[in-house]
């Protein structure tokens, strides 16, 4: 798994690549812990190169959202494959996260 971050239009876009599973979700958390420590107000996580997300990955994302909300930050997810979106639906997390079809849609209006 790798995360590339880019500051764009006043918000942070984080493009994740590869599997988000139990072996690397602690690393994902570390990347976002830094952004959260800086109270980054708006984050878009881009999923088009994410191949798999396991439960630890989903839980890590929930934790990131929870921490961002604690200081009024906002987060959107974008570019998910149908398969990965299905994982969010099974666990009802599609109702917790703002999930947009594309990065552009996610940035617009955030």
């Amino acid at each position, binding site marked *: 798994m790798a995360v590339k971050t880019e500051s764009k239009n006043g918000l942070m876009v984080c493009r994740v690549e590869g599997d988000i599973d139990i*072996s690397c979700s*602690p690393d994902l*958390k570390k990347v976002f812990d830094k952004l959260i420590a800086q109270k980054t107000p708006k984050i878009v996580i881009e999923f088009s190169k994410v191949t798999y997300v*396991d*439960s*630890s990955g989903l*839980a*890590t994302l929930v*934790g990131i959202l929870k921490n961002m909300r604690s200081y009024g930050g906002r987060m959107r997810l974008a570019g998910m494959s149908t398969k990965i979106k299905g994982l969010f639906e099974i*666990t009802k997390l599609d109702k917790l996260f703002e999930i947009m079809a594309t990065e552009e849609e996610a940035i617009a209006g955030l």
Partner: protein
Amino acid sequence: MDKEVVIKAENIVKKFGDRTVLNGINLEIYRGETFVIMGGSGCGKSTFLRHLIGALKPDSGRVSLLGKDLSGLSEDALDAVKKKIGMSFQSSALFDSMTVGDNVALPLKEHAKLERSVIDIVVKMKLELVGLRGFEDLMPSQLSGGMRKRVGLARAIVMDPEIVFYDEPTAGLDPIVSGVIDKLILDLSKKLAITSVVVTHDMKSVFSIADRIAMLYEGSVLQVGTPDEIRKSDNQMVKQFVSGSPDGPIKFFQQKDDYLEQLMK
């Protein structure tokens, strides 16, 4: 599309002392199906299950799980395969001194370096899937038998397994709770695209959950088929088992002529 074989048993033979418990079992189980292994008490089905999960080694023959021949694997490689399977035990096998949440979290703590806050979220997600969210802080002794089974299921799926094995999931439960557990097994299989292998002799359960069924008798496979094929089977032993009749080719008592001799030994 060809069906992907995720479990393959080839000519499995196992003896305990002089007794042959598994007598050359061949089976293939496909990805995504709910496969039921049924048979009477002592037919070898639980022993066979223990071979499938790598807990027992066959005297001859081999088991392949997710494309890996278990007999040729190192301890570490076997552990890596075992991470991809979940096991739901007949007794639920919960630790009575630990809360429900800690019981479910146990495999995560053993296998991964996740922070407690992340583990707590995973546990909540899994308990939601088995309808027990909010029960994290209770102790197993405060739960009914059916609820304990569901906690066992939550623990079996906590590592996102590709295959879940269920040993007698409805044993000791009343018909309504058994129905709830059956529905849950089906739900989890479909929602999470899990391959489920269920060992049971509960006929109602067999026909409500199985995509395919294997009937075991005296360590051998009598027949493999869909529920419909098993219901309409011409095999007299399968017929007797399905109808639950005491009369037929299956003997419920070991008939041994040397009983009196044995007593006098």
